[in-house]
């Protein structure tokens, strides 16, 4: 573990010699109240345009996902699962069948539960989670950027420079999380900068500053990972067995995220890819294969040429 972590110092790998610790986000979704203050604070600070008025019907999520004009996005997930995944301490020794017989006067087939449906009174929960750019250790967007608009900062974060981006769009399919996005007007790519301008001034990013419950925590990534491990242990002890971290593992497909999460369910439930892999992972071997193929091709051509020569 330690060796893996030491091996992944993206700022150092990018050539910074004397740089501050890698900074990032730990988003503890178990204390998120879905207030969306992060979304608004982000837009206010970064002057991100409004994104249109569209009632989506996806619970209270009318933002839908991260994009060129949404750098923080709060997902809302309604589930028929016990609240807080804690045993409410109720006794479920009632005769369920007998009660079901005289159950709800209106028993539509799709009415799975009411609070008086025996045994399922607590089977509802509402998950909320604030998503953001992951600032990957191995960032494919950065790898594919031909202009150098995307760059690694001294804090280990990944930032697009809006005055350099030429709108080629290579970074868009390169992101394994679908985060970075182009604005339709001029085609340039935009995403969370982890408030690079604020970090330089010793301030925390706007979203973390605005978060009232400290669901979004900002700090040195090493500290955040330790704190997150402790929080998971605490939740496990409290009976919340489903608590797990996402994006904290330096050995995952992107070398660990600079912004990672504490979740109460599978990543897919929140719209996260279960096993993200840096899309440029195979580039070196691909180039090797391309090189070999080209060499073979050249050799073949040469052989053919030579052979033809011989034949003549």
């Amino acid at each position, binding site marked *: 573990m330690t060796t893996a972590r030491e091996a992944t110092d993206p700022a150092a790998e990018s050539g910074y010699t004397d740089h501050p610790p890698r900074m990032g986000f730990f988003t503890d979704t178990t204390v998120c*109240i879905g207030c969306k203050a992060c979304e608004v604070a982000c837009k206010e600070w970064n002057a991100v345009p409004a994104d249109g008025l569209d009632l989506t019907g996806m619970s209270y999520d009318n933002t839908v996902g991260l994009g060129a004009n949404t750098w923080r996005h709060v997902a809302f997930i309604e589930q028929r699962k016990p609240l807080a995944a804690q045993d409410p301490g109720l006794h479920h020794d009632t005769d369920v069948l007998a009660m079901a017989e005289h159950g709800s006067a209106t028993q539509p087939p799709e009415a799975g539960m009411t609070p008086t449906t025996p045994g399922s009174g607590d089977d509802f929960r509402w998950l909320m989670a604030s998503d953001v750019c992951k600032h990957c250790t191995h960032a494919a967007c950065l790898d594919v950027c031909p202009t150098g608009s995307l760059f690694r900062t001294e804090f280990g974060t990944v930032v697009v420079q809006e005055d350099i981006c030429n709108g080629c769009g290579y970074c868009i399919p390169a992101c394994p999380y679908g985060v970075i996005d182009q604005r339709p007007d001029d085609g340039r790519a935009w995403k969370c900068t982890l408030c690079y301008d604020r970090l330089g001034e010793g301030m925390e990013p706007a979203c973390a500053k605005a978060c009232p419950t400290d669901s979004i925590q900002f700090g040195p990534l090493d500290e955040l990972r330790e704190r997150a491990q402790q929080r998971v242990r605490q939740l496990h002890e409290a009976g919340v067995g489903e608590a797990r971290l996402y994006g904290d593992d330096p050995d995952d497909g992107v070398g660990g995220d600079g912004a990672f999460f504490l979740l109460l369910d599978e990543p897919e439930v929140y719209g996260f890819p279960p096993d993200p892999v840096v899309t440029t992972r195979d580039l070196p071997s691909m180039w090797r294969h391309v090189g070999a193929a080209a060499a073979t091709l050249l050799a073949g051509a040469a052989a053919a040429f030579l052979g033809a020569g011989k034949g003549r």
Partner: protein
Amino acid sequence: MGTSFGRGGATTFQQDLANSDCIVIQGSNMAECHPVGFQWVMEAKARGAKLIHVDPRFTRTSALADVHVPLRAGTDIAFLGGIVHYVLQQEQFFRDYLLAYTNAPMIVSEKFADTEDLDGVFSGLDPESRSYDVETWQYEGAEVQAASGKRDQHWQRRTHAGRGEAHGSGGAEIGTEPKRDETLQHPRCVFQILKRHYARYTPEAVEQICGVPQEKFLQVCELLSENSGRERTSAFAYAVGWTQHTVGVQYIRTAAILQTLLGNIGRPGGGILALRGHASIQGSTDIPTLYNLLPGYIPMRHAHSWEDLATFVQGEAAEKGYWGNMESYVVSLLKAWWGPHATPENEFCFDYLPRLTGSHSTYETVMEQLKGTCEGYFLLGENPAVGSANAKMQRLGMANLDWLVVRDFSLIESATWWKDGPEIETGELSTDDIKTEVFFLPAAAHTEKDGSFTNTQRLLQWHHQAVEPEGDARSDLWFIYHLGRRIREKLTAAAADGTQKDADRERDRPVRELTWDYPVKGELAEPDAEAVLAEINGWNADAEPLSSYEQLKADGSTACGCWIYCGVYADGINQAARRKPGTEQNWVAPEWAWAWPLNRRILYNRASADPDGKPWSERKAYIWWDAEQEKWTGHDIPDFKATKPPDFQPEEGAKGPDALRGTDAFVMQADGKAWLYVPAGLTDGPLPTHYEPQESPFPNLLYRQQRNPVRQMMKHENNRFQPSDGQTGSEVFPFVVTTYRLTEHHTAGGMSRWQPYLSELQPEMFCEVSPELATERGLEHLEWATIVTARTAIEARVLVTDRMPSLRVQGRTVHQVGLPYHWGPNGLSTGDAANELASLSLDPNTHIQEVKALTCDIRPGRRPRGPQRIELVREYQQRAGITDETGTEV
């Protein structure tokens, strides 16, 4: 809160929630409506506290709770009364606390008859006038005055000779010491009355009325009881989910009884937090925009004949406790307002005060507009065309004015109804026929002016101007000051030029003689807000700032604009502007801003120590008696005379604060005690009683009396009521409606629906229904629905969700419809206003509308346009057999 404990404010502060062992949030959606304060709830949870959310809906607060208890909207008294019953029956109350600090041992007059005796009403009910004669509710042998509420109700007896005879006590001066029974066994002691009153609030009754399964109800009872007592404390937080009912005050009273029984008031991690609706709502009752109060909860005068200052004080003040000094507060207020003109000879201009002739609340004002008596109207930061119940009545009232002034950031619905309101579309109003002259004046935002907010926990926080207001926008202070200045100039000129009649000159004198000389600054001539604060704080005869209301005098040597705010400008320093970080002081953080009264953060904190002055437990130590230093000390400022020892006994005949014992922790109360039973101050009963809402699909299971008998109703053709259960036509409106707010928007939308960043987060009006209701009525997710009441029909997009649970009540399923109330037709994010649906039926104490529980029908599709909208409503009224009498029974 005022009648139970003595002050109309939260008893605790939000940061202290972190010390709670159990927090019950009920009648509030704290995470959505107070997200910043909710951090301390999360802090408590992180420390191991249990969080219970009791609410008809599963909200963002429920999502973070340990237990969510869905209940039928409008049944909270039954639920809380059930817990009171449990606590009494299981003997879970805090006996030592009860005996020392509450009125549990007091004996009540034998003339009192309870709802137990009279099938749901109290003694003294006059069905004709729909009011109670409250005299029979008093203690035996002692008449006490309330610390808030309706203090005028005993005026006649209190101010006239022979009042003692009325009590049969031989004409003696009314005593301040009620009879007590320390064993709590006397059948007429408050404790026994309480026991009998709540005996029928059993878990079975709770289940049948509220739709809460018994085991879930008992889980809440157990969590609360386990987490209360010497070692542990529980807190309650509520908001308008409790106040906006025809029995709203009594909802809060039930929580007050429960918290008093459990010994949770005045102690860290305990208390009742009244969560206010926005930034300075607490401030707007402290220095009131309410018609019936003067600053600092001094009652407004009534139009009694021949009332002078002395009679007023005799009628409204208490004999004992800090209201005993009411004359000093009133005289100092009059000195602040009329300065040198206020002299002992003219009773300090007491006669300049206006007088009440009845209720003049916002809804009565609308009725007066319709009648033509009220001819002009100022709306400052208020959007009644969206935000008030029966919004149509509001608009029709405004359409009958001579002039209307609207001050706001944007052209809100209350400023444009005359050209594009719903009545223009239906043809009920025509722009050409409206004679109202409407003035729209742009308002400055809080970032554009200096001033203070008094927040939910009585904390005054100063804000400094960051930028100058743009264009014609001006602060409210600027507007009021310069309006007053110009009016005074006109009146003074008229008085001087000799053309005015003597009577008119006399009439204008109170305005001409007002102290109205605040310094102005800058190009815009903005009045100095700190000068106003200094006047509110007050000064002595040498013009030195006061530091405590204990310094106020009744001889005219002190001036003070609001006695409870006295000290906010102590030493000439704006104490509200203090911003010492919490990390640099103790956890109570007394040097962050300033809280009334006297910067105390937990009220009644004398009760955090036992009668001997020692903390009830180390874990919950807060304020205690330091015998060596001979004073009260601790983490907060004592809400008690600092040097009064715990064993202090007042001298015979002592009055006011001097009459308080060393154990009288509730220093504003006429008997120094927390009131489980309220002998004076309320219009609808000394004990909370479950009544069904004005409109309900169910009968009252507990009593024959269906509704609050003294609720207030506005009879009008546009304000028809619907039949309740048992009456023909009730099946036409089978569903329960509740209204609410969302995090993303601000009240009636004036501050959010014009903001793109907020509007995109909740872009239009919607309604929330359960999957069962959707199936029953053919409602489709994201399609349109029309919601109908006897008042009107509105439309909304449908969200089908398990968050809006259907409940099982009295053997059948009841569906509830959820309606956020932020929208109107103007702005970026639009929709019909939910408040169009509500009726004007009000709490008789506060005159607050019942919008948290009413009934409706819901059907798929958009509402009809034009006159057909009225046709649809008329058709519903006919089908339900609604007349002008429907729903108006006592």
